């Protein structure tokens, strides 16, 4: 299987935070979610991968052959946008189109116009336009998405794209991911970060979990779901089940948590319910375990 990015020991030191030796792969042709709590290092990693900030060490291999993120040919292959203040607030749809056209060789103005209409943002050719500062958070994010999706790229990297979107817009975002991948099946990939995977679960193929600047787990979602199990049962079995589980939370009547699949038979023998977790449940379990271990 091809990887669109191979991350080898990337580090970044700040005064109060260290992104420590990240090793991960982003598979080609799939949607990868970078999952972690706020401050886990997701944005820092994405910024490094897209050349928005420098790194202290390590390297990344893009598309199996390119290493220099300052290479304009590589930058043209990656469509990146952040969720907060990506463009200056006084910019309008027209200013964005003008700047995108200059900033990237593969920006398609007609496609931008089409996406703006589809997202009900207006027409970039209109004389009277609202600037970004006057738009709602959701419409601002839609504008960023329209801009980045108007480029003919091979990898889409979005930092927290869903955080300011309402449920319907999140659903539309999932559709956009599918469309983007389907346009060139197997050749395009998506990487997005999130601290709340619940609404994006259906579209996620591969997951990289981060905590305290490190990657704590990664893999295809279906494989991860087979490696871990969701366990729940009555409080009476809690004491016996707890040592077999990775994470545990309970009250006077019941308990729930995540366990390794290898413990499934022992847990079933304790008369507990063992089932495949959702990605959201798995995320909570893995991230909670990482918090406890820290």
């Amino acid at each position, binding site marked *: 299987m091809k990887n669109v990015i191979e991350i080898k020991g990337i580090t970044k030191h700040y005064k109060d935070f260290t992104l420590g030796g990240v090793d991960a792969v982003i598979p080609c042709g799939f949607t990868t979610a970078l999952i972690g709590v706020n401050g886990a290092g997701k944005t820092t990693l994405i*910024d490094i991968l*897209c*050349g*928005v*900030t*420098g790194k202290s060490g390590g390297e990344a291999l893009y598309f199996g052959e390119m290493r220099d993120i*300052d290479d*304009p*040919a590589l*930058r*043209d292959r990656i469509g*990146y*946008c*952040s969720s907060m*203040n*990506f*463009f*200056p*607030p006084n*910019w309008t749809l027209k*200013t964005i189109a*003008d*700047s995108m056209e*200059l*900033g*990237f*060789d593969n920006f398609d103005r007609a496609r931008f116009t089409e996406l703006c209409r589809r997202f009900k943002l207006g027409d970039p050719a209109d004389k009277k336009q609202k600037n970004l500062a006057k738009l709602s958070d959701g419409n601002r994010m839609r504008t960023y998405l329209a801009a980045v999706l108007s480029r003919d790229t091979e990898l889409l990297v979005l930092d927290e794209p869903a955080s300011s979107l309402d449920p319907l817009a999140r659903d539309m975002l999932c559709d956009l991911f599918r469309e983007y991948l389907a346009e060139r099946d197997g050749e395009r990939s998506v990487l997005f970060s999130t601290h709340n995977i619940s609404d994006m679960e259906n579209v996620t193929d591969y997951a990289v979990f981060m905590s305290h600047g490190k990657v704590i787990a990664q893999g295809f979602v279906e494989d991860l779901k087979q490696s871990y199990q969701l366990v729940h049962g009555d409080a009476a079995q809690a004491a016996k089940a707890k040592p077999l589980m990775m994470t545990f939370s309970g009250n006077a009547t019941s308990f729930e948590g995540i366990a390794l699949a290898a413990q499934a038979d022992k847990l079933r023998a304790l008369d507990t319910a063992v089932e495949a977790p959702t990605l959201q449940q798995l995320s909570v379990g893995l991230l909670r375990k990482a918090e406890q271990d820290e």
Partner: protein
Amino acid sequence: MNKTLTLSQAVKLYTGSSIGRLTVKFTGLLFAQTCLTTLIFAVIGWAEGKTDRISDFVSLIFLVSLMLAHMFLLGGHLFPRSVPGGKFFRSTKEGFAGYQKMRTGVLLVSILILVLSFGGMYLLNMAVPIGTNAAAYVILLIVSLYMISFLNFLQMLPNEGLANILRITALTLTGIFSAGLFTVQRVEWWHWLAGAVALLLVPLSHLILLRHYRKYFWNT
């Protein structure tokens, strides 16, 4: 096909205006304001029969406005990653090379404004005698070139508060000395020497600023 940005395109990418448009905008505003000031003081001076004081007021307003224009042009465009647009600009195809071109383009706009506005003042002086001469323009041009270098160096100060205090001080000093500078009658040899140093200092301060910016702002 990869096309590289021209200086003007880089300026447009960052500011929304090309080099030509920025120059026309700033020079036009500056010249319109100077014409208006000259007219007002000329009318007052003629009415009171004190035409010899016109140059003092006009030069004060002109130089302070010129410095404000430079401060506005050269003082901005830092775009840390945290400010709106900072991440977009860093992600564009030419990255720092594009930023370098934009800064160079803006410096070019500054110099064009200088040349055009002094040319405009010279023409204005011919139309309305405000008591200045060609020597004064040469010296003021030299002083303005030093001001451009000074503003470049100020951008490297990590303490923004101190940088602002120094900007205001420079503006005040320009205001205080502007009248005296405008009445210089002859260009001495040391004026030419200072001019040659100023011409070297402008690109040097620009290169030092870019190097400093890449190390302490762009990549952090």
